[in-house]
């Protein structure tokens, strides 16, 4: 299992290590084989909030635009001259509220959600499950998913449903991973 480096963008840090799919195409490239199909196959295995890691012998710049169309941002690491590691992760808005005193996390999160586009996701990084925020999210029709990734780290994925596909709150995705 591979985990994002600590200086990675926040949106990558909130990806669960268990939901990262890694594909190494260095040997394909060295052998002159086209790796695109293999990369796309791996991309198909990435869970909703997961990430894809591609290892290549050069910076796979053309892949950035392809993956951007799929809603992925990227973070590139040059490990050696012929060893590149590129992280493709969901292009979500991340709000780190760990250094805010209650109820500032609630106020800042609701303010950020007001400008969140349909279908987009905001991830709140907190040290605890924000119990007072959850009913307000339900009232406003947001879908959310709580992931307690460490004793003092909680990732709350909040998604504004697409207008066309908006569902009543009772049927929204609501899972609690402990």
């Amino acid at each position: 299992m591979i985990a994002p480096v600590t200086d990675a963008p926040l949106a990558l840090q909130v990806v669960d290590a268990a939901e990262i799919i890694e594909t190494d195409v260095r040997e394909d490239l060295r052998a002159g084989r086209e790796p695109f199909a293999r990369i796309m196959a791996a991309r198909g295995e990435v869970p909703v909030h997961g990430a894809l890691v591609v290892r290549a012998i050069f910076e796979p710049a053309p892949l950035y635009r392809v993956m951007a169309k799929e809603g992925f941002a990227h973070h590139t690491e040059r490990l050696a001259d012929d060893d590149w590691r590129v992280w493709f992760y969901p292009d979500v808005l991340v709000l780190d509220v760990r250094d805010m005193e209650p109820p500032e996390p609630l106020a800042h999160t609701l303010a950020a959600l007001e400008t969140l586009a349909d279908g987009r996701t905001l991830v709140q990084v907190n040290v605890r499950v924000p119990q007072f925020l959850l009913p307000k999210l339900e009232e406003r029709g947001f879908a959310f998913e709580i992931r307690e990734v460490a004793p003092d780290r909680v990732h709350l994925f909040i998604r504004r449903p697409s207008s066309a596909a908006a569902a009543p709150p009772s049927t929204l995705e609501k899972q609690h991973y402990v």
Partner: protein
Amino acid sequence: MSGPPLRLPGEHFVAGTLFLLIGAIGVIYAAPALAMGVYASPVVVGVTHLFTLGWLTTSLMGALYQFLPVALGQSIASERVAHATFVLHVGAVSMLVVALVRGNGIVLYASLLTLTVGITCFLANLGVTLHRAERRDVTWWAICCAAVFLGATMVLGAALGINLRTGFLGGVQPLALGTHLHIALAGWVLLVMVGVSHRLLPMFLLSHGGREYFARYAVALIASGAGLLAVLHHVAIIGREVPAVLIGAGVIAFLLQAREFYRKRHRRKLDAGLRLAAGALGLLAVGVPLAAFVLTNPASLRLRTAYVVVLVLACSLFVAAHYYKIVPFLIWNRHFGPLAGTRSLPSVADLYSQPMANAAAALLMLGAVTLIVTVASGLEIGVRIGGVLFATGAAIEAAQMTGIARRRP
């Protein structure tokens, strides 16, 4: 799960604050008895109960109603029972204080009966809630043990109350009184403080990543000590000195936990509430060596009285400090929270004047220190001055809480 109900903790905080104000004024009235160290005098006992049952217990009940859904993911089992408990408790405490001060037997028995019914209802309601909670962490254990000791305190208190009219306890009355006092303050109040502050202090100090095992030791040690004291207080050493050592060690563990939270805080500047909480913890630290001294030396009545004043005021100030965090949060969440994200809103700190809060905290702390020193030295005028300072601080805090409660967008 819904957010915290405002009315239930709110009514407790209003009544608790009134008890604090009356208790603070009562200290001035009780100055002669306090200066002489006559801690068993009716007026001192009455004032003490205004602080312990009135201010502390009423506040802790209200705080638990607000805190349980957040800490344990479980709202109080029955809000209706909680409201009924509130009415019974406040009525009983008011009657008890009048009966203790005026020596009225019928009112005393009526208050004891009402108090017993009220606390029993509270414990039953809390017990069901704790049973339903899935998370069994240090906070759960602290509150669970505290509930047991509140029951023990009630039984001992009822016996002491009946003894006032019948004298059936005879020569063991001082032992029963000491046991009642320590189980109430260590077993009930301190354990709730440990459990609740284990969540609230890091939340308000923005302290994460510190060692948290001290709180577990604190709960285990205090609960063991209070348990031994409750069951074996009639036995020398194992029933008295050993519990004293265990409770003392538990207090030290709690202080170490709080120190860890303060040291690891991300927000360097402390507001009035958190400074007052630190001051209260400092007073509690003074109580440990003082307890050892009182236990091992044939101390004077004044020193014993000063020791009790230290314990009661340390707990009282810690709770008063948390009012500055809990009450503004409740009001903000109720009246401003629904508007969050739709318009610019004041922060919690904007709901009250910081300079006035600093003044209240300083007066409360100065009053408490003056009271402790002058009670120990037997200086009546000093006790009165300490009482005035403390009462002024309490009045400013009460006025600020009233102002906060009236704030609207």
